[in-house]
């Protein structure tokens, strides 16, 4: 491992080493806010480093690429980590989180995510994925005064462990077939004359189960609402955005490397996309808990993103990344609002508790409504152009049926996105006054809101950027 290697992986290094440092120093200086803020700045530095510094190597140790794509993802996940840290300031105080540990774990999760997105080898993929999964087990159960947190942690743990088994078995099978861990070789070794070998199929089946768990595709999604509901709101936000996004961004090159042989897998993904969109939507309809609804919404959105994955190529990639960014902004923002509504005794999740809250806390409620509209894909919010790009890509590349189903689903989904808005603004008040949020939360929410709006009105720059970074 040379200095050049380290330099190339500087952002991840900042995250991991920074995490360690925070952890160590946190043992001495017991100041929660301080470490959260420090952690946030470390994550921002990592993002900056990834964004600005030109890495000297194209690939590190045969496992991680330093392509523009990987750097873009690194920036994205680092920013989400930074946002999570910022968002957690008041929340951590409320629930007496160990500041040092919390910040350190989050930073390391960020490192894991960015490694996952950058992986060019199956080992790298495995390591990156496990790095943040392990940390998430802890983070989900981080609030130790909450039994639900424990339950959520347990559920994520059991499923995570089983999924790890499937993932590694898949990798092992692929390795058995191809004799290499490097993705390009391994995946091309899986095919004979552009047709996947049966053992490759078996390996992919295992991989798909694991990935299906991570990005909660139907029927591997059942854990999602429970875990989102139980975990601390900032962590739910992280789970719904970066944790899923990292897996998706890793999957994009994985499928790309497959070339034509991916069609077999795409068939399955096609089916999964359809049942995910439909089942997720219908299951979300009767929900009366905001976090559970968002969980189902994230499931549906993963279905949409699968469409982009299926389309593949430049079109699909562009649609995927743009959609992902917009989705992350809105979903994270929504969880941010939940965080900011949180009380010492628990979070405000049930619609019954939100009734009429729009008049007590208009700014946060309006922002939440905006996020909902964006998720529903209503212009002029960014969600519209995300869906627009997605449907366009689907139609252009011969998936009209998916576009039609997507359109149908987004119509039905409007109903459950409207429900919290209705509850907030259109029902008689039964909610009680909550405390006013902290400035850090306001800052973050305003940021998400402005980004959603700006991207909805002028998405050109991001689209161009996304088109550039695609491999």
């Amino acid at each position, binding site marked *: *491992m040379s200095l050049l290697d380290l330099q190339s992986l500087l952002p991840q290094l900042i995250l991991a080493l920074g995490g360690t440092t925070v952890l160590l120093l946190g043992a001495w200086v017991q100041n929660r806010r301080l470490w959260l803020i420090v952690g946030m700045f470390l994550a921002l530095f990592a993002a900056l480093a990834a964004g600005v510094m030109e890495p000297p190597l194209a690939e590190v*140790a045969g496992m991680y690429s330093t392509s523009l794509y990987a750097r873009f993802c690194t920036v994205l996940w680092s920013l989400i980590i930074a946002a999570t840290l910022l968002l957690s300031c008041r929340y951590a105080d409320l629930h007496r989180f*160990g500041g040092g540990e919390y910040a350190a774990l989050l930073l390391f999760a960020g490192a894991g995510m960015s490694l996952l997105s950058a992986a060019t080898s199956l080992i790298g993929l495995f390591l990156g994925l496990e*790095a943040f999964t392990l940390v998430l087990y802890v983070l989900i159960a981080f609030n130790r005064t909450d039994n639900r947190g424990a339950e959520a*942690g347990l559920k994520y743990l059991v499923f995570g462990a089983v999924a790890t088994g499937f993932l590694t078995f898949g990798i092992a099978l692929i390795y058995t077939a191809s004799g290499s861990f490097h993705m390009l070789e391994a995946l091309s070794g899986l095919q004979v004359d552009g047709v996947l070998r049966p053992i490759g*199929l078996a390996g992919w089946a295992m991989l798909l189960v694991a990935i299906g768990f991570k990005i909660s595709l139907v029927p591997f999604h059942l854990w999602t609402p429970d875990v989102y509901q139980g975990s601390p709101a900032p962590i739910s936000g992280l789970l719904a955005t970066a944790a899923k996004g990292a897996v998706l961004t890793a999957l994009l090159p994985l499928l790309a490397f497959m070339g034509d042989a991916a069609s077999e897998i795409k068939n399955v993904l096609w089916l999964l996309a359809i049942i995910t969109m439909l089942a997720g939507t219908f299951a979300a309809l009767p929900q009366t808990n905001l976090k559970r609804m968002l969980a189902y919404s994230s499931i549906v959105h993963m279905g949409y993103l699968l469409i982009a994955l299926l389309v593949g190529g430049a079109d699909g990639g562009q649609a995927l990344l743009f959609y992902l960014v917009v989705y992350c902004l809105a979903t994270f923002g929504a969880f941010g609002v939940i965080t900011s509504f949180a009380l010492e005794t628990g979070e405000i999740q049930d619609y019954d508790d939100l009734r009429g809250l729009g008049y007590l806390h208009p700014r946060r409620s309006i922002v939440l409504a905006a996020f909902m509209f964006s998720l529903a894909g209503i212009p002029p919010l960014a969600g519209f152009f995300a869906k627009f790009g997605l449907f366009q890509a689907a139609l252009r590349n011969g998936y009209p049926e998916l576009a039609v189903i997507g359109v149908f689903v987004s119509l039905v989904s409007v109903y459950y996105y409207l429900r919290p808005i209705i509850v907030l603004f259109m029902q008689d008040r039964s909610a009680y006054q909550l405390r006013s949020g902290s400035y850090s939360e306001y800052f973050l929410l305003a940021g998400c809101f402005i980004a959603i709006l700006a991207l909805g009105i002028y998405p050109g720059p991001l689209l161009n950027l996304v088109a550039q970074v695609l491999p």
Partner: protein
Amino acid sequence: MTATLLFYILGAITVVATLLAIIQRNPVHAVIYLVNSFFALALIFYLLGAPMIAAWEVIIYAGAIMVLFLFIIMMLEISPSSDPVRSAPGWAQWVPIFILAIALASCTLLLTGLDPVIAEGLPRWHASPRDFGYALFKEYALAIEIVSFQLLFAAVGAFYVGRLEQKKSQREGSS
């Protein structure tokens, strides 16, 4: 020839031991059976030319992890006798699950069996610890670092989760 025979014997032992392990209702028994299984597996590893892995199988799995399991079981005093109905599944549960598993196994095996490459034999091959070390620290140094970080943070996490929450225990104590 002996190696082949040995492989089948060890394989049988592994499977039987594992099977016995999973149908135990008492976790302590299960762990003991599993240790047997792991020992047999370690020998298979050795047969396949992986002495280092064989050693670690014994040290880490059979030694560290299983002992950790035993430790926790005993610490928490989880005993099956207290509530036998709840702690272990009955036949009614096993049957459908085994059927499912057999279906899955046949699918997987049929699929892999369709691949002509797989039918080739495993050659005798030996990876010395030296080769292993070279490869590990030259090519996979970065991975080692990542794994070490993982271990560190896992330890931190485990510590955080497992630590007694003082406030909470006080609150519970007072109530």
